[in-house]
Structure formats: structure tokens, C-alpha cells
């Protein structure tokens, strides 16, 4: 092994050596050693630790609340475990909240409606985002940075303010209607606010960067010689796009679509501000359960059910994709 090509673990060790030799360092190393954690597993454990603290533990809390009963107290749900006399421990699990979700078709309807809105928005994000990502990836390096900057720029303004700005554009005496009426194209304002159209517009606008960035990352790495080879072999550019570029960019399409679809399903703010009262999404139902009914257990059950509703199809999808890539 040549010097300078040390594996990561060793390189880290050399950086950490002064620390490892200090008193505190030796103490830490001895503890980790006693626990059977070496430098390598230590490094890998950081993301798992992160996921554990910020995903698994909160998830466990929500799951716990979803299995309790709603009561009028602080906190507003019953304890799962009761410590009785003489060391008697009784466990109360209430599956009634999940059964209730099946009883009323409101929940099923709003899950499906949220998924529908998210799916259509994802499709349009892809339709608009793909050419943009492609254009940026093909631009000269100097322009590329400017274009990427423009994609990221809106994030410098609060998300909420940007959604509010759309109200100013879409309302009856807003910018769009005033321009159209000023030009004499329409006589009566077109009603755009409080419609599903406004919700789609808001979601597509807000999530477009999440589609463009992974697509760009993918398209930018595309090997240009493959397209040259296709052209040499007599393939027209349009056909080359469909047989070479598009199939190779599928991982980017999948990543971008997931990043748009998943948060869009649970979206609450955009339908609340731009949508009409009949735009029913699961975020609204969750809000009603939590704040109007003050039923934290049922609200938690709605959240857990949404997770299953989303995660199970995604896991299936990944499973089949892995199988496919193994096969080819």
C-alpha cells in the first residue's frame, strides 16, 4: 500500500492521534473499546445515531400516543403502562383509533385525494423540471452556476411569504386578473383563488427545485461520449435522447419524484392558504383531529397510517427496482 492512499479509518486515526493520546481521548477510546466499537463502526454509527434520535424516537412517541386513549388532562392521553400495587404492571393498548380510521370513509378518501394531488403535482414538476435540469446541465460552466443560483434563490425568502405572494397574484383583483382585464382579454375576473388549480400551482411552484436539483446532479454526470457514439452510429438527437439520456437519468427522476411526492402528500400550508374549503387533504384532517377534536391519539393514528400508506408502496417500488438492476 502506497503512502497517501491510506484507508479512511487510518487517515482519521492520524488526524485524531493528538486527541487520542490526551487524557480525555484515552478515556473515550477505552470506553468505545470496552463497548466493542472501533473507529470504523464509530464513524458509521453517526448517521444511525442521528436517525435514531430524530426519527425513531419521535416515531416511537407518536406510535405510543396512537395506542392510548384521549383524556382531559396534561398530557391529553392515557398512560400505556400502569404500575399497580405489589409490582403489578398492566399494559393498556388501544387499537380503537386505528379501527376508527376504517369506520369513517373520510380518512380513506382524504388519503387517496392527497395522493392524487401529490401525484399530479409530481408529474407536472417532472414535465417542467426535466427540461430545466437538462438545460442547466448542458450550459457552459459559468452560466451553469448562475442558473443553479437562480433555482436556489427563492429559498432565501420564507416559504410562507412566497405562498402569500401567490394570493396577491391570483385573487380576483390581483395582478393576473388586472392585466388580463386591462388588455381586454376578459371582462369578468377569472376565479383562481380557493380552487384546486391554485393548490396545484402552489405545490408545483414550491417543490419544483426539489425536482430540478437531483435531476441536474444526474444529468450533469451523463457521459457525453455515449451521445457522440449514438450520433456516429446514425442516431438522430431526439432518438438519442429517448434511448440514451432518458434511461440513464431514471435514478434522478426517481429521486426527484420522491422528494416532491412525499412532502406534497402531507402538505398543509398550501391547501390551507390557496385551496378552497372543499380541498380535502390528509394534513387538514390531521389538524382537525389534533386541534378541533383535541384527540391526540387519533391524530397520531392518522399520522402512523399515512406513514404506512406512503412507506409500504415505496419499499415495494425500491425492492422491484433493486431486483431489476440486479437482473440487468
Amino acid at each position, binding site marked *: 500500500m502506497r503512502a497517501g492512499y491510506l484507508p479512511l479509518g487510518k487517515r482519521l486515526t492520524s488526524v485524531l492521534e493528538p486527541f487520542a493520546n490526551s487524557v480525555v481521548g484515552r478515556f473515550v477510546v477505552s470506553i468505545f473499546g470496552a463497548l466493542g466499537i472501533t473507529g470504523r463502526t464509530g464513524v458509521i454509527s453517526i448517521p444511525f445515531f442521528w436517525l435514531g434520535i430524530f426519527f425513531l424516537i419521535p416515531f416511537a412517541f407518536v406510535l405510543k400516543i396512537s395506542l392510548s386513549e384521549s383524556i*382531559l388532562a396534561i398530557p391529553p392521553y392515557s398512560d400505556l403502562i400502569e404500575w399497580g400495587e405489589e409490582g403489578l404492571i398492566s399494559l393498556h393498548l388501544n387499537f380503537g383509533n386505528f379501527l376508527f380510521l376504517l369506520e*369513517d370513509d373520510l380518512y380513506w378518501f382524504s388519503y387517496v385525494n392527497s395522493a392524487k394531488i401529490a401525484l399530479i403535482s409530481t408529474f407536472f414538476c417532472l414535465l417542467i423540471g426535466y427540461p430545466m435540469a437538462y438545460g442547466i446541465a448542458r450550459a457552459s460552466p459559468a452560466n451553469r452556476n448562475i442558473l443553479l443560483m437562480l433555482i436556489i434563490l427563492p429559498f432565501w425568502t420564507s416559504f410562507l411569504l412566497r405562498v402569500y405572494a401567490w394570493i396577491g397574484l391570483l*385573487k380576483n*383583483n390581483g395582478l393576473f386578473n388586472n392585466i388580463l382585464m386591462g388588455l381586454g382579454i376578459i371582462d369578468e375576473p377569472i376565479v383562481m383563488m*380557493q380552487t384546486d388549480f391554485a393548490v396545484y400551482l402552489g405545490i408545483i411552484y414550491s417543490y419544483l427545485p426539489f425536482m430540478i436539483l437531483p435531476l441536474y446532479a444526474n444529468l450533469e454526470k451523463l457521459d457525453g461520449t455515449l451521445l457522440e457514439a449514438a450520433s456516429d452510429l446514425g442516431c438522430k438527437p431526439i432518438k438519442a435522447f429517448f434511448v440514451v439520456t432518458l434511461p440513464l437519468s431514471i435514478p434522478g427522476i426517481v429521486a426527484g419524484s420522491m422528494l416532491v411526492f412525499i412532502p406534497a402528500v402531507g402538505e398543509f400550508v398550501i391547501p390551507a392558504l390557496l385551496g378552497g374549503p372543499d380541498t*380535502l387533504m390528509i394534513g387538514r384532517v390531521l389538524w382537525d383531529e*389534533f386541534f378541533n377534536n383535541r*384527540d391526540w391519539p387519533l391524530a397520531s393514528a392518522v399520522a402512523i397510517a399515512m406513514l404506512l400508506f406512503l412507506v409500504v408502496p415505496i419499499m415495494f417500488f425500491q425492492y422491484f427496482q433493486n431486483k431489476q438492476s440486479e437482473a440487468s
Partner: protein
Amino acid sequence: MYKKLLYTATALAFVTGADAQEEKVLNVYNWSDYIAEDTISNFESRTGIKVNYDVFDSNEILEAKLIAGSSGYDVVVPSAPFLERQIQAGVFAPLDKGKLSNYGNLDTGILERMAAHDPDNAHAVTYMWGTTGFGYNINKVADVMADAPVDSWDMILDPATAEKFAGCGITVLDAPTEVFGIVMAYLGKDPLSNERSDVEAFKEHMLKVRPFIKYFHSSQNINDLANGEVCVAMGWSGDMLIARDRAAEAGQGVEIDYVIPREGSVMWFDNLAIPADAPHPENAHLFIDYILEPEVAAAITNYVFYANANSASLPHVLDEVKNDPAIYPSDEVKANLFPDLADDHRFTRRLTRAWTAIKTGQ
């Protein structure tokens, strides 16, 4: 070395001593735009207590913090039905009325009404109160219907009338318990009903006017009414008065009036209360007693245009505020007002479900 120890011990003694007397800090959580500009600074300079003043804009947000526990606030301002339920959940400590020297300034009529929410007025002092009615655009309504019943809930709840105003815009509060009481009063039923059959009747009636309602929202109506986007907006008195003033300031020819309909409506109360786990209960009592001073209460009313519950403050309230029937309604009108009482869990769930059905058709 010994000297150092001695210093530390003395310092420690000071800290614990101050603690027994309570540190000079007070954490207040109030509605946004709901206090006079100098109320807090005057209290600080008089008492030397540093006030951390935070604001919220919905009872639900306040409630979520309170029932999660350890909110850290010393004085909060929930509306009556929320206060009522929170008292039952054990959120609040009873007031020590011996520490409130100005308690006698409170309006006995309001104390009586509030006792329905807070038995014996044990936990809270009413801060401001108001009504639920509707604001309407005088000119636009006259254009649509010359003899419009502008003193009645017919404007929103009678299908034939509401249909006429659908084009220029009707909005309803997204507050199911209040709208339920109002619809009950409109139908000549008991606004305090907890009957399942009444929820059905409520839903049935609302579905008749549903096609003519533009949206259900509790704050958007202020701007939309003021700039003429909507014609008739169910709303809380203070909000509708803000819309009236904004419309007048804009000078676009929009004129707004606020009505407490003759069929009766909700009288609501926002109340000062001290959480049971408040870190500074002594300072909280000092603050509430300060708010109960006639001059202080009047100054807030003159600034926010909401009626206070302080009889002794009336001589200090501006005439234009005192004589505005939208802010201080006559006793006759008051007789028709009913409270929005807290409901039990089962009724709440049923009503929320009916409300979703009304709004979404699902």
C-alpha cells in the same frame, strides 16, 4: 481560599434569597395586537419586573402548548370555552383574589356570564369581550338587494337571500361551535344544545346555504371585506371593526358596517389566567391586578377597540368607543347574546365531522 469560599457562599445565599422572593421576570402570552403600546413598559418601569411578551393568533396553538405541559408562561389569555376545558384538564391555578386589590372593578354582569365557563370565577379575570356577527359592504349589498335584511342572519343563513349575495361573496368563520350556536338560534332552537339530532339539523341547514359560501376562514375575512373582495363576512366584532377602519383609510369608496343580528349571537370572552406550573405566580398576580386598574384597562380599550370587563374604566374610555354599539352593545342586544360553552369529547367529534361534511361535501 477560605475567602473565596465565603464569597461563593454569600453569592449563593443571595441567589436563593431572591428566589424565595421570586425573580423579577414575567412571561406573558397574549393574542397579537391586543394591548396598548405602553401597557407593558409602564408595568415594567413601575415594578422593575422584566416582561417577556409573546403573542399567538389562535386558541388552538395556545391550547396545544398548555396541555403539552410546562409552557413556561405566567399569564395566558384563552377564550372562554377553551379556558373552561383547560380548567377541567387542570391547566390553571386558582387565582388568589386577596392579591387582586382591583378585583372589585369588574363588571358584575360579565362575572355572572363568565361563571358559566369558570365556576365561581375562580381561575380567570376577563380581559376583553366581544360578539360574533357579520360585517358587510354597505354599497355593494344595496346594489344587489335594495331592501336587504341587514339586521338579520338571513343575509348568510337564508338560502334565498344568500343566493343573491353569492356572486359578491359570503364568508363564514371556521369556528364550528360558534356557527352551530348561531344556526341553532336562527332556527329557533337552543344554542347551547348538545343533542345529536341538532347536529344533524345544523348540517342539513348549512348544506342548503353551502353553495353560496365562498370560504370558511377566521382571519382572511378582514382584508377581503376591507378591499371589497367579499360582501358579507361572518366575523368577530373587533376584526370587523378593523376591516371598517382599513376600508375607510384606503379611501376606495368601500364602506363597512358591523351588525349583531337580531336572532342573537355569541358573546365571547378572552381571559387572563395563570397556569398551575407558572414559574412566577406572584408577578402574574401583580400583572393581573395592574390590568384591573381603571386607567390601564381603559387605555387598552381605547387602543384596540374591544370592550373590557372593567366597570370602573368606563369614565376613562373615549366617547367614540363607549357609544359605538358595535363595541359596547345596548342591554337589549346583550339580552340576546349567549355563551359558546365547551362541549364534551363525543359532541365535539360529531360536530367536527359534520363541519368537515359541510365544508367539503365528504
